[in-house]
C-alpha cells in the first residue's frame, strides 16, 4: 500500500514529539529554571528560541510541553474510546429501554458545551493534570458511543452472529468476540481525532490559567505570552506552532486511517 507523503510527514512528526517527550531532559535544559536573561529574542547564544519573562528557555519549555499534551491527548482518547465502546455496545445490544436511556445520556453529553463545562469543573475542583484528564475523558466518548451503538444494533441480527449464538456462545462473548472486532476501524479513527480535540481543549484550559500549575504546557505558555505580545512575539509563536502542527498531524492520521478502513 502506498502511503501519501502528508501521512508520512504526520507520522514522522508524531514520532518526533514522542521522542521529545521521552528524552526532553537529555535534549534541553531545565524548563523551570529562570535566570537573569529574561525576554531574550530567538537565536540568542544558549537560547535559540529565546527566553520568556522569567528567563526560562522557550525551547526547553516547548519540548517539555509535549509531555502534558501527549499525555492528556492519548489517555483521554483511550478512556473516551473505552467508555464509548462500553456505552454504545450496551445500548446497541440490549435495545429497548436501556438503549433509549443510554442514548438520551449520550445526547445530553453531546449537547453540553464541552469547553465551558471543562472550565467550570476545573475551576470548582481545582487544577491538576489528573483532573484535566478526567474531565476531558468524561466529555470525549459520545461520538464513539453513537457509532458503536449503530453498528452493534445492525450486527446483532447478522447471520454470523446468529451462527455463533446457535453454537452456544453466551451474550457477552458474542458482543466481545463476534461483533466488536467489526467496529474497531471507526473506533480507532475517532480515537485519533479525539487526541487532536483533547490537545486543543487542554491548551484552552491552560490558556485560561487552569492547567496543572506544576507542569509546563503549551496552553499555559500562551497564557503567559498574552501579556508580552508587544515585546516578545516568540513567547506566543513557538508553543502555538507546536500545538497546530501536532493537532494537524493527529487529524491527518485520523483521516488517513478513515480512508484506509473505508477502502477495504
Amino acid at each position, binding site marked *: 500500500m502506498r502511503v501519501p507523503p502528508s501521512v508520512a510527514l504526520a507520522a514522522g512528526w508524531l514520532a518526533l514529539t514522542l521522542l521529545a517527550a521521552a528524552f526532553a531532559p537529555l535534549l534541553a535544559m531545565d524548563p523551570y529554571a529562570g535566570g537573569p536573561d529574561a525576554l531574550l529574542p530567538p537565536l540568542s547564544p544558549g537560547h535559540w528560541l529565546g527566553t520568556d519573562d522569567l528567563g526560562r528557555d522557550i525551547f526547553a519549555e516547548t519540548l517539555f510541553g509535549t509531555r502534558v499534551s501527549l499525555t492528556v491527548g492519548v489517555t483521554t482518547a483511550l478512556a473516551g474510546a473505552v467508555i464509548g465502546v462500553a456505552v454504545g455496545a450496551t445500548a446497541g445490544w440490549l435495545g429497548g429501554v436501556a438503549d433509549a436511556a443510554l442514548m*438520551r445520556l449520550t*445526547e*445530553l453529553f453531546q*449537547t*453540553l*458545551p*464541552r*469547553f*465551558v*463545562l471543562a*472550565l*467550570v*469543573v476545573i*475551576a*470548582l*475542583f*481545582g487544577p491538576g493534570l489528573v483532573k484535566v484528564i478526567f474531565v476531558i475523558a468524561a466529555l470525549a466518548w459520545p461520538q464513539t458511543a453513537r457509532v458503536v451503538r449503530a453498528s452493534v444494533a445492525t450486527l446483532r441480527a447478522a447471520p454470523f452472529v446468529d451462527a455463533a449464538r446457535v453454537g452456544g456462545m453466551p451474550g457477552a462473548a458474542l458482543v466481545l468476540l463476534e461483533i466488536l472486532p467489526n467496529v474497531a476501524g471507526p473506533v480507532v479513527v475517532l480515537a485519533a481525532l479525539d487526541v*487532536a480535540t483533547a490537545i*486543543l481543549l487542554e*491548551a*484552552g484550559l491552560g*490558556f*485560561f*490559567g*487552569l492547567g496543572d500549575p506544576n507542569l509546563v504546557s503549551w496552553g499555559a505558555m*500562551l497564557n503567559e*505570552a*498574552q501579556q508580552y*505580545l*508587544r515585546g516578545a*512575539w516568540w513567547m*506566543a*509563536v513557538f508553543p*502555538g506552532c507546536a*500545538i*497546530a*502542527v501536532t*493537532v*494537524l498531524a493527529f*487529524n*491527518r492520521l485520523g483521516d488517513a486511517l478513515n480512508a484506509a478502513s473505508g477502502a477495504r
Partner: protein
Amino acid sequence: MRAASIGLFVLRRLAHAIPLLLCVIVLNYALIASTPGDPVTALVGDFPAPADYKAQIRREYGLDRPVPVQVARYLGRVLQGDLGYSFANRQTVLSLIAGRLAATLALTGTALGVSALLGVGLGVLCARRPGGALDRTVTGLATASYALPEFWVGQMLILVFAIWLGWLPSQGAHAIRGAPAGWAGIADGLRHLLLPALALSLRYLALIARITRGAMLQVLSADFILAARARGAGERAVLLGHALRNAAAPVITVIGFNLGFILAGSALIETVFGWPGIGRLLFESISSRDYPTMMGIMLIVSASVVLANLATDILHRMLDPRIG
C-alpha cells in the same frame, strides 16, 4: 395536513428539548453540590462574605434539607430567572450577564454571518470545479484551520495587524477614551470588531465551505439537475436556483449545531481581545472565584445550545419535509 404535521413535529421536538433543559439545570446543581468543602462557597463565591449572608443563602437554597428538596429549590429559582447573586459584583448574576450580552452577540453574530456568507460562497465555487485550484486551496486551508487553536490565531492576528502593522486596535470594543459619536463611533466599533470576529470565524468558515461543497456535489449529481441543464438552464441558475436551494438544509444544520462551539470559542477570543462580553466575564469570574457568575454563564450557554439545536431541527424540517 402539512401544517398539522409540522405542529406535531415541533411538539415532539419540544418534548425532547424540555427534559434535556431540565437535565442541564440539575447537572449544574450537581456540580455546585459536589464542590469540595462547603457547597455554600459555590453559591456565594470564594469571598469573606458576612456569616449571616451565608446563613441566608444556606436557608434559601435549602442546603440543610435533603438533596431532592435542594434540587427542587434550585430548579424553581432558575426557572423563575433567578441565577443567584454575584457578591463580588454586588449585582444579580442575570443582570450581570444581560449587561454583557450585546457585546457577545455582536461578536458571535458577526463571526457567524461572515462565515456563513463566505463559507457558502466558497463552497459553491469549489463545487463548480471539484479538484480545481480554488477547491484544493480551500481544502488545504480548512484542514489547517481545524488544527489551529482559535485563541492563538487571535494572538497572531494581534501580532501582525495591531503590533507590527499598526492598522487595527488589539484590545477592547471601543477607543480607550470612550467611543466617538455618530458614524465615527460605528467605524471605531467595526475596527475593534474586525480582528476578534476574524479569529472566531476562521474555523466555521472552513467548516461551512466544506459542508456546502459536499452537499452541492451530491445535489449536482441528481437527475433533476441534469433535467434542468437539458432544458437549457444557465450554469448560474443551476448552481444557485436549483442546487444551492437543495443543499441548504445540511448547511443550516451545521451552523445551528455549532453554536455551542462558537460560544465556547468566543470565551477564549474575548479573553485574548479584552472584548467586554460574556466570555470575558467567564474568565473574570473564574479568576476571581466568583462561582455564582461562573455557574450562571454555564447555564445560559448550555440552555442556548439546547434551544439552538431545537430551532435548527425545526428549520431543517421546514426546509426538508422528508425528515420525520
